[in-house]
């Protein structure tokens, strides 16, 4: 029960008025930057860092962490309402969230996102609190072959994201993989597909592609429909703006699935929250009784990825706090902040700075509650945006998208790239290609190629390294099962049909 005593002590720290106040400021700012596409938590934390120099370190950490997990909450808002992913991890939320909004269930989708974020965020902190040291060891046992297998498993999800045509899904995925290969190759220092443009040396920013393909593609597609634009239905009355019991019940498994998958993937320093949300979406669809409805606006399709990207935060804190190893851009900046205050996250952190560790853990519980309370009342307000006429709404989406992209890099080149990917998104829609596999390929391509090449360098070119390690072998088998899933389904359909005909 040592944990409970420590946690009690942590709550005493977190509930000090000063810490409570800054925790609120953190989660509030986090929600705000999460809602804004482009501007992400990493840049926000970096810019606010100087503000925290005069604070006690614990207070500062509580606030900056609040920005980090708060942004994950906010990211879903524009994804659901406008099909603009507010930050990279909410791309998956667009798939069903935006469809729910189109079906008049925008409020419900936002509500489910908030509730799922709350549950998963809390599970993530629970995991951080109870399992940090042993899990950190588990994270270290993952190396390149395991990451490669994880990415293969992720890529196998393409069979679940495909719409009517598997060929089209695979082509879209290949396009994504190709875009991912642009830029400088880490291993040879050669530049690939940069067309002589120095702007392309760092590759194509994922945010630009996601906003272009999803948001602008959607706007271009809708602009084509002439005449009186049909507005999205927004039901009146608070009750109709919140999820129904039936919807929440449908999400039971998704809450759990998202929480657990997000946390485990968060613990691995080389994965990331976008991968976590894709995998939990895929798992949800794979076990669902009505997989064919995914992509048309099912609540589970919102709950699973939103959950995963929130519990990923708790997971990502594990290697950061217990090993001093950051797994993402945001945690890297948090680490830099820790060092500036003279704190060194690492194996000795929990013993040497119990106040800070337990104070932070407790503040994350508090912050999650704050976020839920902060976000739920805003839902009816946010949902009103859909009442805007199209000739107002579309320019707004355009504006938000361009500002968002410009805010990341301050480069006009990137704004032109946004237009290019917007047109690509439009073409994809017109030709009836699914856009999710493209994004999947883009997210996984780079890390998957890297993991494969690292593995082969480790084994001096022997492919056996991929299957001789138990964790990677297991994941590769799972990937094969995933790939065979459509075949099973088809066989099953055929069997049912045969039975019906016989009977």
């Amino acid at each position, binding site marked *: 029960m040592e944990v409970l005593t420590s946690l009690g002590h942590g709550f005493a720290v977190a509930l000090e008025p000063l810490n409570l106040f800054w925790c609120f400021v953190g989660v509030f700012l986090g929600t705000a930057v999460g809602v804004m596409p482009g501007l992400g938590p*990493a*840049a926000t*934390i*970096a*810019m606010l*860092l*100087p503000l925290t120099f005069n604070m006690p370190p614990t207070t500062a950490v509580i606030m900056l962490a609040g920005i980090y997990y708060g942004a994950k909450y906010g990211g879903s808002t524009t994804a659901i309402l406008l099909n603009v992913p507010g930050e990279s991890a909410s791309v998956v939320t667009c798939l069903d969230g935006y469809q729910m909004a189109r079906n008049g269930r925008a409020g419900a989708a936002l509500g489910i996102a908030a509730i799922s974020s709350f549950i998963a965020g809390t599970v993530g902190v629970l995991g951080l609190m109870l399992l940090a040291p042993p899990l950190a060891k588990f*994270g*270290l*046992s*993952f*190396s*390149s072959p395991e990451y490669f297998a994880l990415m293969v498993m992720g890529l196998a999800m393409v069979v679940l994201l495909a719409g009517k045509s598997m060929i089209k899904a695979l082509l879209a995925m290949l396009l994504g993989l190709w875009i991912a290969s642009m830029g*400088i190759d*880490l*291993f*040879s*220092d*050669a*530049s690939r597909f*940069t067309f*002589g*443009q*120095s*702007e*392309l*040396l*760092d590759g194509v920013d994922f945010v630009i592609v996601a906003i272009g393909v999803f948001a602008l593609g959607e706007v271009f597609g809708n602009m084509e429909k002439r005449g009186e634009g049909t507005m999205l239905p927004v039901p009146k009355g608070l009750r109709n703006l919140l999820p129904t019991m039936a919807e929440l019940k449908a999400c039971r498994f998704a809450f759990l699935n998202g929480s657990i998958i997000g946390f485990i993937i968060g613990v691995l*320093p*080389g994965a990331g929250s976008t991968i976590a949300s894709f995998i939990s979406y895929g798992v949800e669809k794979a076990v669902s009784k009505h997989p064919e409805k995914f992509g048309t606006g099912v609540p589970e399709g919102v709950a699973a990825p939103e959950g995963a990207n929130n519990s990923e935060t708790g997971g990502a804190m594990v*290697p950061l706090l217990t*090993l*001093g*190893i*950051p*797994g993402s851009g945001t945690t*890297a*900046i948090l*680490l*830099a902040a820790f*060092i500036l205050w*003279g704190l*060194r*996250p*690492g*194996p*000795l*952190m929990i013993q040497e700075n119990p106040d800070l560790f337990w104070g932070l853990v407790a503040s994350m519980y508090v912050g999650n509650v704050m976020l839920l309370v902060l976000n739920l009342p805003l839902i009816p307000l946010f949902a009103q945006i859909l009442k805007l006429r199209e000739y107002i709404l579309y320019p707004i989406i355009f504006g938000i998208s361009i500002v968002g992209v410009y805010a990341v*890099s*301050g*480069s*006009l080149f990137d704004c032109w790239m946004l237009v290019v990917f917007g047109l690509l998104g439009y073409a994809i829609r017109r030709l009836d290609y699914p856009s999710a596999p493209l994004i999947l390929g883009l997210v996984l391509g780079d890390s998957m190629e*890297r993991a494969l090449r*690292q593995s082969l*360098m*480790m084994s*001096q070119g022997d492919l056996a390294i991929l299957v001789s390690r138990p964790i990677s072998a297991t994941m590769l088998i799972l990937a094969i099962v995933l790939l065979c899933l459509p075949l099973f389904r088809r066989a099953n359909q055929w069997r049912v049909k045969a039975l019906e005909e016989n009977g």
Partner: protein
Amino acid sequence: MRCKMKLRSSIIIAACAATLAAAPAWAQFKPTKPVEFIVHTGPGGGADVLARFIAQTFEKENLAPVRFTVNNKSGGGGLTAMAYVAEKKGDTHAIAVFTGNWLTNPLTRAEAKFTVKDMTPVARLVLEPALIAVKGDAPFKTLKDFIEAAKKAPGTMKQSGGSITSRDNVVRQLLMKDTGANWAYISFPGGGERIAALLGGHVNMMVVEPQEAGEHIKAGNMRVIATVADKRLGGFPNVPTIKEAGYDIPNVEQVRGIVMPAGVAPDVVAYYEDLFLRLSKTATWRKYLEEQQFEDGYMKSAELAKYFDVFTDQMRVILKEAGAKVVR
């Protein structure tokens, strides 16, 4: 565009204010409006943190009559910022942080339109030493142990590091050439992943910055077997440098300093040169170097120009040997 214009007009307003306030002493150059401080990383990156610290120290210690505002020109692996500085030819109110990448990257990237030759060297500021580390329970107690093990089983020992143009790999290349040993080099994009690979036992050795490794060394998870530095480091008095360990290879420095656009008068360069000399003597700066475990590497403009040439020539040879395609 709008933003830029706004920025420009606010600079003009500030400039007018500064001109009114400044005493009319024209004998020597003095900045009359806020100086743009260009860095090639986004907020929070290494060069950005350094620039912001310098700008803050200028204000705190009252070293300059104007403010220094950091401008992040990220992208293109540093080339975007380099092009930006080079195209500001003649601008006396712009300086930039350069790092070793500014010298190395143009060598291998055909896309680079400019090199540091298209800029004016101002001052070298810091040299960052590094450690050669192995896992805490590894059998290697000294660098020699590791090299001998690598010789016995060529190609099976592994080192984690950054891209092949990074210092990590340069140190490896030099050591391999000197000893005839041969081990694999596995690139990871993030510092965290490199450390995770070592701690998880997936690689045997790495070159790491003292700051990154500090806690792991204290906890016994990592052991330092040599330092990449000219002389022993304050934090590791018992660990020999590579040279002391018996391997006579040139010391590979990770360097940071200041450059400015080309085409500026000598008194302008002299002003900034002196400004950074005064900075390097403040207690705040001393403390910063100590905390970050950096070495003071102050060097004046003329020496720095020569240093650029020597460093670039050395890197060209090393990169060719490492198998990179050198384009200039």
